[in-house]
Structures are given as structure tokens and as C-alpha cells.
């Protein structure tokens, strides 16, 4: 009874806070609409779990953040394309290969479009994929460990933006180039862009068993900009749709010169047809260089392989596989409704939203209703494929998601709003402001056959006055709306890491039962793992010293090491012997030019220390692990180069393996 009373009180207090903020803080008075019930809808009591996971990309942070919905609480930032000192990602010896590319080690990227794997068009919760824009890459995150386990670089590509969307059974994760570039890459005058630059659309196959990625083929499209894409589903499964802009093929002042044509295109690609062509030996094996990085969960170690060949397909080789759908004014978002019938193009500069019909598209192809061609690719007649248009919906349409109830939700960047409209009748049902300049929006499963149409999350580019100021750089944010009623209801604002570019969401129950708790020591095949204190040792090999160390609450073995010399390269290979949930340990060494290690139960990680000064130097556990955490420490004695102090290592004054 008491607890009920207490939580009631808490809710009341919270609601009061919410309401009073609304009255005080708002410039537009828009928050006045926030009622106490909004607070209740996002309130997840202490110890309770959220209903949905949201994987929100970090944009220019290069990472992927995991939030709970409806609370907006941040659970984890998964390092993907950028180094993360907290988790030693890109710092320890095991994960450095993950960030290798054909340009060498790259510590950062710009992460954009997460997409959860699907089976039969529905979210299956096995992996989430995300693209790195700048040095084109696709990453795969394993949703049992919430760790990045594979990164594949995309050759012949630049500004990898129309990526990383999966087909209905995760046959492929698809990556399209934003910038067209010379193909093959070469030293040439930029003004000779037209005709010489190509836009690569890459199809990366995903092994249905273990998720292994493989760059199966690249389609070398005309030198447009390929902006976004989505797969067909249901009846349109087997096709993929890409928006294009700069069909003018301008190479300077694009903001003017790429906005000349009345219509650009959505490229419709029959990938099944091209796959068949390639499977039968079609395409050209072209020389190239790209890195393929795989993290092995058993060895706890990543390896990077440079690949030197890719199959490229010229569209003219596979007639009948690619068509252009004219779409007004530099279309950005390219979204396919749950039935697979409607392909929505959001012309950034257009006055209306365009919906193409897949059925009509097939009929137009059949009846050869063409309006000329571009580089040999037939352009379908606009009127023949149009299903309808949403008139005067707002300014600057960007992206659309679906609730599975016949409604679509589109963001408008310039007019800062989310607009709800009806598929088929194209009428606008509701509009709600966002604060401010919304980009993508996300409904869990909202780009699959089965959306979970309870909430929509809008992700904003600008927040201005919405939060306490933090100097010139202010937080970016996401906003949660309840979409269960006829009208949308704004429930919550919450700050995000980096730029919340896009997100993927799914019911928590899809992932919760599979979430890994520990790594089994028996299964640890790390080259330098030690599975009991008795095996701990220190081995000198020239000026390299390998310390095979263990950690458990709350000591290291060994914890006293002598015989190290200035100029040595000292590898700490540290195994966490714990086999219990939520007992990581950390380790850091004074003066090591790297990050700490944060080691999960049963895992082994390595850092390198090159001592530069004689002395006795301590190391310690960085993760508060038990009541005796402050006791978890050790010493390394560093002698001058050439010293005769022998290697010894002890625990409690004894050799480590003493019974």
C-alpha cells in the first residue's frame, strides 16, 4: 500500500514538474498541451523495464546509442566507427583491426542509418546494421552482446549515405554512394565529371546462419547522387528503391546547380534479377582494395583482411532490371509502406509528397510506357506510375514511416513538424510541431511488414532554447509522440549523443531473452588467455614482455612484477575469471599511452605499455567491483635497460601458482 502511495506521489510530483515547466519555459506555448497524463505515459518506475529498445545513431559521433522507450533513458553507447576510451574500443589490441580500412586505421566516422535484421519482412532482432558515411563502411552489431562484430569497407563509393537497409529476409544489406566518383578512381580533371563519374550501389550478402557479410556485387550507376533507399517488401520483395538527386551531374555549387531539373529519379532495381545474373557468372571481376574486419567472440579478437576484387555490373548488361521513376525535385527519403505497394518519394524542394504504385510500375514496364532513357536506363512515364500525392503537406519533406494501421507519418524539416496522413486517400489527418528542424523519424518496425505503431520518435537537428545552455554547442534531441489516437500527442523530449540521425526500434521482448550475461571461460580461445591463476605468468621475448594476468574480485594475479626494463614493450593480456553477471573489471597502468581496459566476465583483453622511466609503478582496477575494489592493485618494477634484475612475479609473496 505504502509503495503504491509513494509512486502515486512520485507521479504527481513529476506531473507537477512537467506542467510547471510547460508553463514557464515555453516560448510558443506549445507545451501547454502537455498534460499530466503525458508524464504518466513515459514514466517507467525505478526497477521496471521499458517496452521498446531504440537504437539511435550518433551521427558525427560515429556510434550507436541504445535507449529505452517510452522513458528515453540511455542504456549504452555502442562504439562502432569511432574509438571509445571507456570501452577500450580501438585502443586495445583486440579491437584495433575493427577500424582498419584501405586508407589505414581510421578512428572516426559519421554513422547514419541503423536497420534491424528481418525475417519474412518482420524484425527478427538478430543484428542491427549501420553505415559509416565518410570512409564508406557497413557495420554489423550483434544483438546478443550489443557489440560491433563486423565492419566491411565499400570500395568505389563515397559519402555512403543511401545505406544500410536490409531486404526482407536480410539476404542483403544495401549501401549506395552519395557522391559519384571516377570509376575506376584516377587522377582526372573534376570538370570532366559528366559520364566519367559513377555511382556504385553495393549489395552485401548476409549469411543466414552467422551473419557473415560479403560484398556480392556493385551496380555501376550513372553519376548522380544516391541519397536514400529502402527495400521492396511483400509484393515488391526482390526490388530495391533509391532516391537520386543531382541528375544534372553538377560538380560545383550543387545547392543551385543540382536543383535545376523539375524531376529527379527514384531508381527501381530488380536485385533478384541482377543476383541471378551474377550467380550465373555475370558481371566483371574488377581489381580494388577494401578492408573486411571481423570480431571473433570466441577469441575475443578482431582480424582485418584486405580484399582485392569486386564484381561490378554495368546496368546495360542486364536489360529489364533497372528503371527510373521520375520524382519531383531532389527527392530525399525513399520509403516503402508495409504492404510493399507504395513507394514514397519526398522531394526536398517539392510542394507535395509523391507516392508511386508498385503495381502500376510493373504495368508501365510491361506496356513500355517510357519517357526516354538516361544512360540506357528507361525512364517510366510519371503519370503512369503515380498512385497519388499528398498536397501541400508542409515544407521540406524528408522521411516517412508507417504505423501498420494505414497511416503514414512524414517529417518536414523546414516547417519543423510531423504530419500524419492516410495511405490511399492521401489526406492529411494531423500535424504536430517538433523542436526544431526534424530529420528522420522512427516507429519501431516502421519500415517493415509489421510496424509496432504505438510511438513515433522524431529526431531533431536543432534544439536552441529547449534545454539548459551549454555554451555554443547545445545538445541535439529526440521527441516521443504517442500515435495510438487519431491525433498525435507529444510526450517527451530527451537529449541524445551526437546527431541522432536515424533510429531503429523493436519490442524489448524480442531482444531481452537473448542478451548475453557472461562469456564462458571454457569457450575463451584468446591466444593469451589464462583460465586459472595457476596459469598466470610473465614471459620475456627479447624486448617484448607478455604478462598473462588474471583478475577476480578483488585482486590481480600476479600483482607484483619485477624484471621489466625501460625500452621494453610490455603486453598486459588480462583475463577476467569472473563467471557472474555484471562483474566487469578494469585495468589501467600509469603512463600507458592508451585507454583503460574494461573486461567482461570470461573475456581477455590486451593493452601495451612502454615504460620510459625507472621506478616502481602501480596499476589498478578501474571499475568499482566490490567492497574491496580499492584494494585491487599491483606494482611493476622497472629497471634500467640491460639491468640484471630477473623476471619474477608473485601474489601474496608467493609464486602465483603455489597451491
Amino acid at each position: 500500500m505504502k509503495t503504491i502511495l509513494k509512486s502515486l506521489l512520485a507521479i504527481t510530483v513529476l506531473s507537477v514538474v512537467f506542467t510547471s515547466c510547460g508553463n514557464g519555459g515555453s516560448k510558443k506555448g506549445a507545451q501547454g498541451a502537455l498534460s499530466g497524463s503525458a508524464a504518466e505515459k513515459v514514466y517507467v518506475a525505478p526497477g521496471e523495464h521499458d517496452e521498446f529498445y531504440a537504437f539511435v545513431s550518433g551521427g558525427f559521433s560515429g556510434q550507436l546509442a541504445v535507449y529505452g522507450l517510452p522513458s528515453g533513458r540511455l542504456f549504452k553507447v555502442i562504439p562502432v566507427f569511432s574509438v571509445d576510451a571507456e570501452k577500450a574500443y580501438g585502443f586495445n589490441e583486440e579491437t584495433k583491426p575493427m577500424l582498419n580500412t584501405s586508407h589505414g586505421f581510421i578512428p572516426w566516422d559519421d554513422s547514419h542509418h541503423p536497420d534491424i535484421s528481418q525475417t519474412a519482412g518482420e524484425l527478427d532482432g538478430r543484428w542491427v546494421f549501420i553505415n559509416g558515411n565518410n570512409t564508406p563502411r557497413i557495420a554489423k552489431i550483434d544483438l546478443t552482446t550489443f557489440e560491433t562484430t563486423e565492419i566491411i569497407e565499400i570500395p568505389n563509393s563515397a559519402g555512403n549515405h543511401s545505406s544500410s537497409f536490409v531486404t526482407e529476409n536480410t539476404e542483403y544489406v544495401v549501401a549506395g554512394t552519395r557522391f559519384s566518383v571516377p570509376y575506376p578512381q584516377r587522377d582526372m580533371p573534376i570538370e570532366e565529371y559528366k559520364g566519367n563519374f559513377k555511382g556504385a550501389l553495393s549489395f552485401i550478402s548476409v549469411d543466414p546462419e552467422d551473419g557473415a557479410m560479403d560484398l556480392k556485387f556493385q551496380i555501376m550507376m550513372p553519376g548522380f547522387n544516391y541519397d536514400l533507399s529502402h527495400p521492396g517488401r511483400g509484393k515488391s520483395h526482390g526490388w530495391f528503391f533509391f532516391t537520386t538527386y543531382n541528375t544534372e551531374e553538377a560538380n560545383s555549387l550543387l545547392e543551385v546547380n543540382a536543383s535545376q531539373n523539375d524531376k529527379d529519379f527514384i531508381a527501381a532495381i530488380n536485385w533478384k534479377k541482377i543476383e541471378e545474373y551474377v550467380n550465373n557468372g555475370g558481371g566483371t571481376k574488377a581489381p580494388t582494395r577494401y578492408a573486411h574486419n571481423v570480431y571473433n567472440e570466441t577469441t575475443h579478437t578482431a582480424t582485418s583482411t584486405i580484399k582485392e576484387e569486386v564484381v561490378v555490373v554495368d546496368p546495360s548488361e542486364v536489360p529489364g532490371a533497372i528503371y527510373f521513376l521520375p520524382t519531383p525535385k531532389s527527392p530525399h527519403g525513399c520509403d516503402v509502406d508495409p504492404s510493399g505497394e507504395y513507394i514514397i518519394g519526398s522531394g526536398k524542394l517539392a510542394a507535395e509528397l509523391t507516392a508511386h504504385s508498385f503495381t502500376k510500375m510493373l504495368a508501365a514496364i510491361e506496356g513500355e510506357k517510357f519517357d526516354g532513357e538516361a544512360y540506357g536506363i528507361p525512364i517510366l512515364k510519371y503519370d503512369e506510375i503515380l498512385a497519388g500525392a499528398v498536397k501541400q503537406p508542409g515544407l521540406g519533406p524528408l522521411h516517412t514511416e508507417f504505423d501498420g494501421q494505414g497511416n503514414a507519418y512524414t517529417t518536414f524539416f523546414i516547417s519543423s513538424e510531423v504530419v500524419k496522413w492516410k495511405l490511399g486517400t492521401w489526406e492529411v489527418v494531423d500535424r504536430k510541431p517538433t523542436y526544431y528542424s526534424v530529420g528522420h523519424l522512427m516507429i519501431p518496425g516502421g519500415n517493415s511488414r509489421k510496424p509496432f505503431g504505438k510511438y513515433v520518435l522524431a529526431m531533431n537537428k536543432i534544439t536552441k532554447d529547449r534545454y539548459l545552455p551549454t555554451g555554443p554547442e547545445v545538445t541535439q534531441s529526440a521527441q516521443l509522440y504517442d500515435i495510438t489516437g487519431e491525433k498525435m500527442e507529444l510526450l517527451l523530449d530527451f537529449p541524445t549523443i551526437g546527431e541522432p540521425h536515424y533510429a531503429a526500434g523493436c519490442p524489448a521482448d524480442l531482444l531481452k531473452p537473448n542478451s548475453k550475461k557472461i562469456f564462458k571461460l571454457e569457450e575463451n580461445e584468446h591466444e593469451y588467455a589464462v583460465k586459472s591463476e595457476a596459469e598466470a605468468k610473465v614471459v620475456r621475448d627479447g624486448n617484448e614482455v607478455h604478462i598473462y594476468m588474471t583478475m577476480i574480485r578483488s585482486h590481480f594475479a600476479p600483482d607484483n612484477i619485477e624484471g621489466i626494463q625501460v625500452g621494453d614493450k610490455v603486453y598486459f593480456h588480462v583475463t577476467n575469471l569472473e563467471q557472474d553477471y555484471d562483474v566487469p573489471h578494469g585495468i589501467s597502468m600509469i603512463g600507458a599511452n592508451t585507454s583503460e581496459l574494461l573486461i567482461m566476465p570470461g573475456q581477455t583483453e590486451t593493452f601495451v605499455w612502454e615504460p620510459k622511466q625507472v621506478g616502481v609503478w602501480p596499476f589498478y582496477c578501474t571499475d568499482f567491483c566490490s567492497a574491496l575494489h580499492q584494494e585491487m592493485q599491483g606494482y611493476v618494477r622497472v629497471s634500467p635497460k640491460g639491468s640484471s634484475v630477473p623476471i619474477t612475479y608473485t601474489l601474496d609473496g608467493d609464486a602465483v601458482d603455489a597451491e
Partner: protein
Amino acid sequence: MKLKVLVVALVVAMVSSCGSDGKKSDKKAAPKEEKKEVVEVDPMKDKGIGPITSVTLTEIDQAMADKGKAVFSAKCSACHKMSKRFVGPALAGITERRTPEWIMNMILNPEEMVEKNPIAKKLLAEYLSPMANQSLTEEEARLILEYFRTVKEK
């Protein structure tokens, strides 16, 4: 001295307040009970709390004991030496001090044991570092028990 007692009480309170799996029970009671806790239970009757309710012992099975020793050195020896106190108590002769069920429950269910079982609670108060759950199977715990039966106190 007083400080130490305070620390113990605090730790007990901390540990009990972060019991596993986010159970929602009200856990404010602990410190007061502390004094009354003269362990009246006969340790050789206490079966502890956990999945093991009854173990029937027959003659020592040396093959099992050998396997148990291997599991013990992999999963337990970082904290326990048989003959001397280390991070945890010395374990030689443990089967003469505790029932087989209690030992196996301590291995399989240490969080609840140190939170609720009077003997285990007292041990935690003395050792401060918690007995680790090493996620063993019942079978592995049983092998270790067999190994323990072969190591008598000197």
C-alpha cells in the same frame, strides 16, 4: 573499532539493497537485527537456501573427486586455498563443518545465501568481498563437493 562496525553495517545494507534481478521487496530492515544474530542453528543441520534440498552421500568416488578438483582449480582457486585463508575461507575439512546441501547452495546461489542464510551472512561480514557466483551447473557443484570430501583438515 566503531568505524569498522559501521562499515560492516553499511556494506550489509548496500549488499542487501542491490539484491539480484531487481527484486522489489522492501529492504530497509537490516542493521537492527544484526545484534540478535547469535547463530543458533546447528551448522550440521542447516541446508542453506537454494536449489539443493537433499544430497545422498555414499562412499567417496575418486573419479568424481578428481574432476571436482579440476573444476575447483579453474573456477575457485583464485579466491580459495584449501589450507589457508585467502580471499575466502580455507576449505580443508569443510564437509565436517557444513552440510553437503549448504555447500552446494553456497556455490550455486551465493547472492541469496549471503543475504539471508545466517551462517553465510556472518561469513560475508567477516570477509567483505562476496563469494562469487561462478555460474556452475549442479553437476559441477556436486563434483566439487566430492573433491571437498577428500580434503580433511590437518
